């Protein structure tokens, strides 16, 4: 830490004050307001609804659609996260392995990352066009004799679910690769050299050196991806009709929140309760993962040291 000038330290408070105030006004108060609204029957029509206790939550938990939305959100996230991490691990091992000497690592990685920066709503609309009945995918499949005739992909729940998973994977595997590579290149080469002298195999090196040492990066990836995944909206919203069609197959919790918000009455109170439940669930799981995995590493270090 930098030794600093004795009496000037109160400037520290001044300089961080905009952040704190910004957070209180635009972060914390809206969160409080959302929680407060979730206990009322406020709609767009009447600004100050009456306090209704837990009614919104009771209705929500009695609603099968809500469970479908929660299950969908988890499924869509997990189904893309696992292959995303798998491919990224493979790619980052290949790119950082000194024996393989893969050429143009920087360029590959740059191109793989590109989809991540593209506007998700445009990506969803693009894939909708590509997979539409007269779209390029059908044209290609029919001409290559992979399909006897064009298929209405947009109406197939399985295809649409698979497509959301694929798009999420497509957008994120590059970023995960970059993060894992950053973790792997920060490991000292001497560790691997010592292991080679001890006769460790490539797999053993990966399992007992690389994996434990990139654990902090993996936790970072897991938690940020989870938080993003639980708020999934743009892709499933714009891929079909904005209601999670076909057959609620890609209805996520955020889409459900939006649907309640933009219903004919504009049920702000009910929409808030969706936000509150998902917020609690996500924050709880994210912090749980963070602390569980963190403590384990600390314990191991302590065991080794003692």
């Amino acid at each position: 830490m930098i030794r600093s000038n004795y009496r000037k330290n109160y400037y520290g408070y001044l300089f961080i004050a905009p952040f704190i105030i910004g957070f209180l006004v635009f972060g914390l108060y809206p969160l409080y307001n959302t929680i407060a609204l979730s206990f009322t029957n406020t709609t767009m029509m009447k600004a100050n609804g009456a306090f209704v206790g837990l009614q919104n939550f009771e209705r929500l938990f009695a609603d099968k659609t809500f469970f479908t939305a929660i299950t969908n959100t988890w499924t869509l996230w997990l189904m893309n996260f696992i292959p995303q991490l798998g491919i990224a691990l493979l790619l980052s091992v290949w790119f950082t392995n000194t024996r393989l000497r893969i050429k143009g690592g920087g360029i590959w990685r740059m191109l793989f990352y590109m989809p991540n920066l593209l506007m998700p709503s445009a990506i969803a609309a693009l894939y909708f066009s590509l997979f539409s009945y007269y779209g390029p995918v059908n044209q290609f499949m029919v001409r290559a004799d992979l399909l006897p005739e064009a298929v209405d992909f947009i109406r197939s729940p399985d295809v649409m679910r698979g497509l959301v998973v694929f798009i999420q994977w497509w957008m994120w595997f590059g970023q995960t690769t970059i993060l894992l590579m950053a973790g792997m290149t920060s490991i000292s080469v001497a560790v691997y050299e010592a292991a080679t002298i001890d006769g460790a195999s490539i797999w053993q090196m990966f399992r007992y050196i690389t994996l434990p040492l990139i654990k902090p990066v993996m936790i970072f990836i897991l938690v940020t991806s989870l938080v993003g995944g639980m708020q999934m909206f743009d892709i499933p919203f714009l891929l079909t009709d904005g209601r999670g069609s076909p057959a609620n197959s890609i209805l996520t919790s955020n889409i459900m929140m939006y649907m309640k918000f933009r219903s004919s009455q504009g049920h702000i109170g009910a929409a808030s309760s969706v936000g509150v439940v998902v917020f609690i669930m996500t924050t709880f799981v994210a912090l749980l993962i963070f602390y569980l995995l963190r403590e384990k590493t600390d314990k191991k270090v302590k065991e080794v040291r003692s």
Partner: protein
Amino acid sequence: MSAETQVSASLITEKKTNYRFRLNLFRIFIYVVLAILLLITIVPVWLLFVNATRSTVEIQQGISLLPSKFLISNYNILLSRGLDLPRGFLNSFVISGLTTVVTVYFSLLAAYSLVVYNYKGKQAIYNFILVLVMIPTQLSIIGFYQYMVKIGLDDSYAALILPTIASAGAVFFGKQYLESIVLTELIDAGRIDGASELGIFHRIMFPIAVPGAFTMGIFAFVGAWNNFFNAFILISSRDKYTMPMLVQTLRGDVYRHEYGAIYLGLAASVIPIIIIYFLFSRYIVNGISMGAVKE
């Protein structure tokens, strides 16, 4: 040389060539996998740009990987159906530009506070910022919306820009960056010269931190440019629509079967980001790496 050593030597060379061969085979396999992944990454985006230049009839006739000459006519179709692309561009640029300035300035200021000064509660504030990175902030959007309606900021860009004063991720990045570059000597020299603390931040720290500020700025810009959800909930006037919101209207009945025009609208919304990326990819890739790896 005895026969035995000769045999073992030839065995070793055989083993070596065998190993080389297997390694090369594996390398070929890797390049094939990389090439397939590259195709998966590029082809959809390529088709987007190509189809933006083709007429609807051409698009329905089949796939082409080469551009055609209907760019202008597609654009005219978009305009005639009431899609004000230049307006959306301008709106998105204004919002993204202001968001970038606000995020970079206030996040660096907060990071500077955390790195340079010592005060009570600093560690607690820092830990809190780390927790904020892990919190799903979008989920409080309904409360945020209703609050903006109450204070008259709904349907205004202020509601999209001002919250970025408190960007936890950017402060985290800024702290990592400043720790690697801030020089106590320079700050002390500034103080001896009688510069104010804010003056030191502006005139001494900022010039040194330009690369970091730039990286932070790119992420802020891209994030604001692509942000659909918040704008979709907060903005209602048609003339204030941002690019992602215009993209969303392309799904409507007005453009039914005008595939070329739809592709053009989508292409227009992603092209600034692709240009930014190919110009500054080095900053972006390094920026992502810095966000995650401590020490």
